């Protein structure tokens, strides 16, 4: 952690890794140590001797740590991911070697400790974990009618742009209920000659592309969309 509660994030610019300072997370995250440039460089070297590859591994680890803290109900998962990386960098900076067969497991072990500290902080601060927070009531109606209409336009346009085979896959994948839906997904995977796991990823990507299309369309205020020839 840099002085003043700043944090390094590795960014790849050309062939060189450069560092950007960003604002720190919530004040409740007490920082007791500062990541030096040297410690950070040593961390990257531990991840991979090749600096560019090390940057990629760093980003993968940070992504997984963020999800780990999110799935463990931390309200600010990115802050705790950074805190974990700081902790690992400190250990390495102090001369520790990562003896674990897999470097990812080392990060996971440290993350578990950070998580335990988080729980203690939550207890001390009497902050409700996510699991104890009741969902907010649904709004009675959407006051932004124009925005809602635009969203519908974008939704229609993006769905119409979807290639037919993807449209068939996504509707088949989400058809039915309960056991029938699961059976259908298994059948679909068999028909396509791919494992169920691969089908799940395929459906996830189609949904992701659709949502991105809708989101970008709304931002661009681009409607009505002209359906593309499929």
């Amino acid at each position, binding site marked *: 952690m840099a002085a003043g509660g700043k944090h390094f994030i590795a960014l790849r610019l050309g062939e060189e890794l450069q560092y950007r300072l960003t604002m720190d997370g919530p004040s409740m995250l007490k920082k007791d140590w500062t990541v030096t440039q040297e410690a950070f460089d040593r961390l990257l070297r531990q991840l991979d001797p090749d600096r560019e590859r090390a940057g990629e591994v760093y980003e993968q680890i940070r992504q997984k740590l963020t999800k780990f803290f999110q799935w463990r109900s931390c309200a600010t998962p990115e802050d705790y991911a950074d805190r974990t990386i700081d902790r690992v960098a400190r250990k390495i900076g102090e001369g520790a070697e990562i003896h674990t067969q897999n470097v990812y497991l080392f990060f996971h072990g440290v993350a578990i400790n950070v998580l335990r500290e988080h729980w203690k902080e939550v207890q001390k601060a009497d902050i409700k974990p996510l699991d104890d927070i009741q969902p907010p009531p649904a709004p009675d109606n959407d006051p932004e009618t124009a925005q809602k209409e635009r969203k*519908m336009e974008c939704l*229609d346009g993006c769905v119409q742009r979807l290639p*037919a085979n993807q449209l068939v896959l*996504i509707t088949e994948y989400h058809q039915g209920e309960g056991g029938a839906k699961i059976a259908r997904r298994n059948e679909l995977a068999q028909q396509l000659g791919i494992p169920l796991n691969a089908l*799940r*990823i395929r459906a996830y990507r189609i949904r992701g592309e659709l*949502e991105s299309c809708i989101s970008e369309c709304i931002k661009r205020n681009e409607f009505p969309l002209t359906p593309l*020839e499929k």
Partner: protein
Amino acid sequence: MKKTNEDEAMIRYLLGEATEEEQTRLEEQFFQNDESYQQLVALEDELRYDYAQGGLTKRQRASFEKRFLVSDEDRRKVALAKEVIVRAQKERAETMVPARQERTSFWQVFTSPLRLSFAASAALLVVFGGLLTLHTVQLNHQLDQLRAQRTTDQQTAQQQVATLEKQRAELEKQLNSKPAQAPTPTLFSFVLMPGLTRDADVTKPLLIPAGDGGVRLQLDVKKKGAYKSYLASVQTLDGEQVWSQNLQSAQLTIPAKVLRSGDYVLELKGIVAGGEQESAGEYYFTVVRK
């Protein structure tokens, strides 16, 4: 066919229902293995879509709401997920009309690139032509299977509608004939309020005397006048459906004989002008048979 044990473990993990041991195992797995990580991320997204479509068990829905339905942004994402699937299904239904098929048929979609590849490859290497033909036949076979599956689904849906209609007719017949057979009043009326979660303090038990009468329920619907008709389904908390019916209004009569003492949830789906269904409310109630 059921979900694999691993899928079930991952779902438990995402919903915060996994044991500490399971959590550690899955985490070590996804930290080391990108494929496992991708599966979890995809499954998390899939849960959102399943939830939006009214899927998942009662307990899973409650866990999902606590974990993934916390902010307004979360709610917007779920609402979008629902819209995406509804629109995709509508779009697919429209692609079935002849005019659309002329423009882009499934055959063209699945085979055009292959046919081009075949022509080019055949001109260069005859041996590859044979392989491509085989591949085309396989794709054709898959297409036939998809079409057959769709036909079967339509038939199943029609049969389900016919069965429900038959059940409705029988129940109406029974209810209509009851007053003549039994002079004593056998209809019990209650008003149910919607609620996302079951609250023992709020839920008043419906006291229903022994007998074969009907239980009339008046449902308080938030979006009054938004639906042209409804589909009501009564289930036990274990998910066993005991009764369902199409309704013209948010009022229904359930044969008392299907209700034993216990807790129930009534799922009300509203049918809008376009024929699409959406959740109009969930009503928890407890039955006590005297």
